[in-house]
């Protein structure tokens, strides 16, 4: 693989990883603090993407639409948490699986009723072209934007969790919820807010990835599983773990896809190489997870000590 291609793929991997992080951040907190398996987290990503695409049709402005979608999805997430998910925290994992699986069905079909099975969403025209990062290396401007937004949000979230009072309360909840409650932290109220933020981050990822992937019903299902892989690798409940895990998974997935394809081309017929590359790259993520769990059963950065 040439150097330029390698840099390009590394940037793509980082970009995908950062978007995964936006999903995984909310998921790991719900899982870590409330011990809740939320299969419907990917649906919030879908809802965010559809809202953004719908708002672009109304307003014509990409930035306004993304902001609007983020605000609306955040509110939707808070309503969902307060109205339904809250009652599930005390239930066993199986009930949570059944309830949130039901939510996937409801949200998938609900979105289909309101918006149809898919909506067009394209990157703003100003960012459609490539940017020359250094002589001889061009990179799409829109992907650069995603990279920038992802990095900024990752830093902001890190500061929020590590440096603020609210973050300290959330971390206390993740490491020992009964103790945090006994110390007078109102975990329930705090958590509605945390869930809202998590939903808003999903919407950011959905709206920004929309133009690259596709805004369609069911888009949340596959990325949800990757987000679960990320939080298991990173350590459930740990924001830092989610960040490291996301970038690792993003890079393995992206580099594996192109890298393995290149390698296979050397000694396999082309149609086999183009098929086997993506398949083995997808498998590589899971093999990596299994390897991490074999050596560090609690993930890379366990939140519970």
């Amino acid at each position, binding site marked *: 693989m040439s150097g330029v291609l390698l840099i390009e793929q590394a940037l793509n991997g980082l970009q995908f990883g950062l978007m995964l992080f936006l999903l995984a951040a909310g998921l790991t907190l719900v899982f870590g603090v409330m011990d809740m398996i939320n299969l419907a987290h990917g649906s919030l990503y879908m809802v965010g993407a559809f809202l953004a695409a719908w708002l672009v049709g109304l307003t014509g402005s990409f930035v306004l639409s993304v902001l609007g979608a983020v605000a609306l999805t955040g509110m939707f997430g808070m309503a969902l948490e307060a109205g339904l998910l809250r009652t599930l925290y005390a239930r066993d994992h199986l009930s949570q699986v059944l309830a949130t*699986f039901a*939510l996937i069905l409801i949200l998938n079909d609900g979105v289909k009723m309101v918006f149809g099975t898919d909506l067009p969403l394209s990157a703003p025209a100003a960012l459609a072209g490539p940017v020359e990062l250094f002589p001889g290396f061009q990179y799409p401007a829109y992907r650069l934007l995603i990279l920038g937004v992802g990095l900024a949000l990752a830093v902001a979230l890190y500061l929020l969790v590590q440096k603020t009072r609210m973050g300290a309360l959330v971390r206390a909840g993740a490491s020992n919820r009964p103790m945090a409650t006994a110390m007078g932290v109102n975990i329930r109220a705090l958590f509605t807010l945390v869930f809202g933020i998590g939903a808003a981050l999903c919407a950011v990822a959905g709206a920004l990835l929309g133009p690259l992937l596709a805004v369609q019903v069911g888009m949340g299902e596959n990325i949800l599983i990757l987000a679960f892989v990320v939080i*298991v690798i990173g350590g459930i409940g740990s924001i830092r773990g989610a960040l490291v895990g996301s970038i690792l998974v993003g890079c393995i997935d992206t580099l594996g896809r192109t890298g393995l394809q290149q390698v296979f081309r050397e000694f396999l017929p082309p149609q086999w190489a183009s098929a*086997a590359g993506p*398949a083995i790259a997808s498998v590589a993520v*899971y093999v990596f997870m299994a390897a991490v769990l074999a050596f560090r059963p609690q993930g890379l950065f366990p939140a519970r000590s």
Partner: protein
Amino acid sequence: MAARAPEANADRPDVPALKVGAGATAITATTHLDRTLAIVFVIAALALPFILDALGAGYYLSLASRIVIYAIAATSLNLVLGYAGLVSFGHAAFVGLGAYATGILVSEGVVGSGWHLLATVAVTGLAALTIGAISLRTRGVYFIMITLAFAQMLFYLANSVKGYGGDEGLNIKARSVLGFGAFAIDLKNPLALWYVAVAVLGASLLALARFGPSRLGRAVLVLRDDDVRAEALGFPTYRLKLLVFVVAGVLGGVAGALSVNLQGYVSPNVLHWTQSGTLMVMVILGGVATVWGGLVGAATLLLLQEVLAAYTEHWEFWTGWVLLAVVLFARQGLVGLLGSARRSVAERR
């Protein structure tokens, strides 16, 4: 392996007896096979094709067969999920492997059901042994994720094997043929497929009903309730779990082999995680750790879909609300709901 658990019981008759006594409250009527229900099942299974024919609704036999095949898969998952308390989120792997094992053999021109059964049992048994041996070293959430990961690997593998359809799936023209010579029964005949499927389901339910109260079954229930204690009591917990995992995997594979015979088609989608999710939903909906849970769950979900789809294209939406209602208001699943309704009727008398 099966002999070890009773030995552990025999060594310390007092301690396990205490635990089994405590667990006996958990072994309710739902883990035994109700004789009336069993008779109803047999009569319904024998008579259904003729009833449907008389009503001029022969088409519904294929729906009924689909329900029965899903019920076999859900029942096998219930063994792992309910009885052994192992939340496997990758059961579709075994159903899919069974379907592919049979589908590939048929597409290669091998139609003898003996070979299909052998291949299905060998492939799914080996896969379950491997996946189980690795996954069972983890617990809780990590077990859920590892089993999911293995199923996803197989999903991507099936997508990439272009020789057998790749992501477009594999169509088969022929079907399994039971027996040979003058006694050959082609499963292309819907009636034959129906009777084979209900026979497998009936045998599975009977085995599950025998398993619950057996010494082996009680040992598994003990380790579900507290596997540290079970281990301290001398139960070979790891091997017991692995045994249950492999048996359930093989039964799931048989369900897959039947489903490819029903549909004449297998695609990587049978391995997708939403399939594992659907099977889990069926078990939880019907009733975890109950004999009839898998059948009740599969029948309810598929019939609900069928009925709703006749009235609205948005049947998923309404199915979701029904499932939510079950989570919130029928905590023991539908079998539990029916049981408590029967009890309250009995009390009123």
